[in-house]
């Protein structure tokens, strides 16, 4: 049913927190996501023309890079983009078949590929470009938040996280319950000023992004400055006068 589920205040909001301050743009999450999902319950994520002229394929996660700021102090920001599992997912409500749905228990937005007719309307409804059409099977695909990992009791508990999170070499991706204010992810969002993407559109994404920041070092005023000259002098001479013990 593509009506949004009635979700109590206690319902979990499983999602990702992505740290743009730490993401180095290495594509590890994107590739590992493809690797996990293509052989898993999600089914094959096809590649078109893999060794030819226009290599293309289905990816649930894509890594952009941008430059922000002005020329003088430009910063490169790497930006992973995937489904945000919105609270208000228009992609779900526009679906005519019920293939797209949002789970009541954890808020994960999924596509039932057995019901999907491939009308692509959900992809039009998603402002984040998170939906990927599978040309080979004619249905819409998307991030599943690795439901076949996060609820797999046969995995050790530490491994029950999405593949993108588990593999992220910079630890820029975090997974947890964003409805729980005491969760690791909620605390990160609170501490670091986590933001919504495109808040003005009102989709209320579950996933949050932590903005880039800038660490600084405060220094005391210099002891000496500008006393450049030949030979040892000034502060260094005073230093060398001190007795040493080898």
């Amino acid at each position, binding site marked *: 049913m593509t009506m949004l589920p009635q979700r109590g205040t206690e319902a979990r909001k499983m999602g990702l927190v992505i740290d743009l301050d730490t993401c180095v743009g290495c594509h590890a999450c994107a590739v590992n996501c493809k690797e996990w999902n293509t052989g898993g319950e999600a089914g094959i994520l096809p590649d078109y023309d893999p060794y030819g002229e226009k290599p293309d394929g289905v990816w649930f996660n*894509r890594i952009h890079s941008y430059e922000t700021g002005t020329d003088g102090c430009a910063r490169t920001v790497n*930006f992973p983009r995937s489904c945000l599992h919105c609270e208000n997912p228009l992609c779900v409500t526009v679906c*005519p078949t019920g293939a797209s749905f949002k789970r009541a228990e954890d808020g994960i937005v999924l596509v039932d590929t057995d019901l999907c007719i491939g009308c692509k*309307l959900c992809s*039009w409804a998603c402002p*984040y470009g998170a939906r990927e059409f599978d040309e080979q099977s004619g249905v819409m695909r998307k991030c599943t938040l690795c439901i076949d990992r996060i609820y797999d009791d046969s995995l050790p508990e530490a491994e029950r996280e999405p593949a993108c999170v588990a593999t992220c070499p910079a630890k820029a991706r975090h997974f947890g319950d964003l409805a729980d204010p005491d969760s690791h992810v909620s605390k990160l969002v609170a501490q670091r000023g986590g933001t919504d993407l495109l808040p003005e559109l009102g989709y209320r994404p579950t996933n949050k992004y932590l903005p880039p920041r800038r660490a600084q070092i405060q220094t005391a005023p210099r002891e000496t400055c500008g006393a450049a000259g030949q030979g040892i002098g000034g502060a260094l001479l005073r230093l060398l006068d001190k007795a040493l013990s080898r």
Partner: protein
Amino acid sequence: MRPAASVLLLTTLTGFAYGLLTWLGLYVAAGAPPAARLLVLAGVGVSVILATLGLIASTLHLGRKERAWRAFSQWRSSWLSREGLAAVLTYPIALAFAWAQYRAPGSPAARSLGVVAALASLGTVYCTAMIYASLKPIRQWHNRHTAPDYLIYALFSGATLFALLHTLAFGTAALAASLAALGAFGALIAKLAYWRHVDAQSPIATLASAIGLPEGTPARPLDAPHFTENFILREMGFQIARRHAAKLRRIALVVGFALPLLFSLLAQLGTFPLASSSLAVACAALGLLTERWLFFAQATHVSALYYGRTV
């Protein structure tokens, strides 16, 4: 947005079909002469055939056509589902209306069914329009113009067809041509207003906001995730040169609205009524297809922000 032939055909054909059915219904409700029995029957036939063609065309872009029937289930939330249901429901209504009018022309049943058929037709067009109007990521669609415009274009294109059928039946277009002329004028005004609106709109979002940075932060794309064009760019990243678009707009205005207005007036005045009303239909069809192509091609999707486009 990529202007797919299937959706262009769907919306244009169903516009003609449901517009025609609306006029037929109102025609009967308003007390059509008994002589119009065959006209109404034929008109409903044309309408049903055009609607069916449109609906068939719409399934062409489905990835899994054999599952199209599933699309009727989510009417509670999905305008696409509602459109499908409305279209399907309109069939028996149209047939009942045609049957009633054929068996008992001008009977209260026929007249009431005429009103119902008109409402069902307009309802279906409205559902179609709302598929587009409800999509927040596309500012050229998600606005107060889209739904009324679709209704106006349907009424306009249906009227040209009505006028043609009327001419075929009675040799004169009579009031129907006036309706078509009025429709053409209304559609022209609506289209101009729509373009004025979308051209004046400011972008609904910026790249900074799309990547979670404070509003006003300058941001430029450096590298896209993949080099080759992907689904998002093919589907949502369609771009058309401004000069090309301006030319097409002029074509749409002239062919789609001005010429039908002119031909409808000629038909109304009795100048080569058959030729004039035929040309009005042909021009309307061509012009509306162009207009519809532009409606897609000039629509920008917020997700293209990620690829450095403005939306």
